């Protein structure tokens, strides 16, 4: 559009100003506050036994949730893109549910299923106020990502090559590993990156089911809240900065492997 220069500049200033006030300046303040007492203090703060245990719990939970949801995501995307069956629209809608449900409600749902008096109250291991609850909550909230990234890629590549492979005698496994998977690998990778970021950053659902037992069921995000509530502001900032660095890494990975840019 031919916009006169003053207009263009003032629109640009308005847009960038809004982003600065809402995003950039607050992030910079957090990093400034984190490091105002020196790098050493931050390092000490993120290497306390509590912080280390929170870090490993977050990693463990993510390492369980993401692979499971990746396998499910690829299977489900194949069914959605290639299958013809009744109830496809319903399946599609159910996959989006975790995006639309409040994280607190997810946690509540798990308590109502696995907690005292719940439908599955007789499980041989404790779920609520324990690590399995955190794992279930994290799996729930990260269900849609891989499906949503892989389905459009599968639709776009079509199935001619797979059919050609089949006529040449390839088994379904061979066709999947040699043809389907290589053609969707960037979509899968993108979905995994989004899932990892979401799993590491999940707070609400985990907060409800964790019971917040220090050194046992505290994840990194819960550590931020716990430190904040214990008036350890510097410690909360340090843990936040660690999470923010992970988020920035995610952004970098996202711009690198954006599948929509891959075919351009």
């Amino acid at each position: 559009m031919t916009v006169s220069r003053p207009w263009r500049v003032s629109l640009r200033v308005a847009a960038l100003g809004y982003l600065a006030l809402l995003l950039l300046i607050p992030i910079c303040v957090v990093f400034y506050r984190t490091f105002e007492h020196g790098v050493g203090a931050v390092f000490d703060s993120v290497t306390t036994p509590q912080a280390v245990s929170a870090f490993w719990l977050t990693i463990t939970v993510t390492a369980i949730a993401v692979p499971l949801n990746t396998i499910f995501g690829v299977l489900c995307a194949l069914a959605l893109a290639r299958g013809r069956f009744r109830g496809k629209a319903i399946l599609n809608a159910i996959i989006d549910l975790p995006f639309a449900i409040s994280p607190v409600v997810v946690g509540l749902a798990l308590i109502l299923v696995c907690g005292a008096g719940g439908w599955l109250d007789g499980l041989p291991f404790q779920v609520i106020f324990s690590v399995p609850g955190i794992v279930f909550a994290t799996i729930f909230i990260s269900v849609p990502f891989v499906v949503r990234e892989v389905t459009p890629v599968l639709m776009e590549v079509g199935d001619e090559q797979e059919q050609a492979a089949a006529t040449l005698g390839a088994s379904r496994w061979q066709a999947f590993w040699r043809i389907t998977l290589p053609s969707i690998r960037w979509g899968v990778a993108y979905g995994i990156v989004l899932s990892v970021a979401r799993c590491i950053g999940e707070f609400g659902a985990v907060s409800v089911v964790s019971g917040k037992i220090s050194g046992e069921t505290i994840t990194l995000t819960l550590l931020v809240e716990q430190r904040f509530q214990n008036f350890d502001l510097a410690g909360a900032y340090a843990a936040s900065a660690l999470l923010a660095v992970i988020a920035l890494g995610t952004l970098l990975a996202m711009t690198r492997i954006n599948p929509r840019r891959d075919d351009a």
Partner: protein
Amino acid sequence: MRRPAGRPGALGLGISTLWLSLIVLLPLAAVVVRSTDGGLDTFWNAVSSRQAVSALRFTVEVSLLSTLINAFSGTLIAWVLVRDEFRGKRIVNALIDLPFALPTIVAGLTLLALYGPTSPVGINAAFTQTAVLMALLFVTLPFVIRSVQPVLIELDKEMEEAAVSLGASSPAVFRRIILPNLVPAILSGAALAFARAIGEFGSIVLLSGNIPFQTQVASVFIFKNIESDNPIGAAAVAVVLMLISLVILVGIRALGRWGARHDR
């Protein structure tokens, strides 16, 4: 004859359905069913208590306001990112996704660092309705931008040039040509943002101060009810939240169909 390779058999679809049923549907069904554990009266009392009504009302109002503001500023930012050229545009474009990548608890702490009691600029909005609004503006920022951007890129410039050659002013071109083409994308982005806003928890929990009848939102209200060992009451309010989400999800699908028709 062997079935074509790569096609999901009944097995893939079966695993997907089982996974979704166990992870997503069973817990959500538990919320709906168990919300009436104490009878319909208890359900109604929980939903219609003054505090619950006030929390739900504030949640819907502040979500609508944040959606409105971000629909406007998101369209502006998308326009600047697509049609304007300036240094550092790619970095700004990558930064837009930061609210998706940053854990919500960190987002809350970040806003608190700049606009809270320890603010370096002397603005203290902590524990006010404004703080809740800002948290929602932060976490829902990317939705409208990411939904409008691709449409704006695809938009045919010839139409605009024709309008200008016929003597239309810049505002007229925007109002008569650009905006009508963007409306479906703005609406679907706004609907996603609204759905996210009404369930938001992590970014609000530190900022709102959870003052009943003032800054208490529905998700925090549910959380407090779980903490005070009233999961059934929490479930009743959760069902109302889920109903609102459901209406929005259905609305988005209808919008999508409408947008698709609009394209042709």
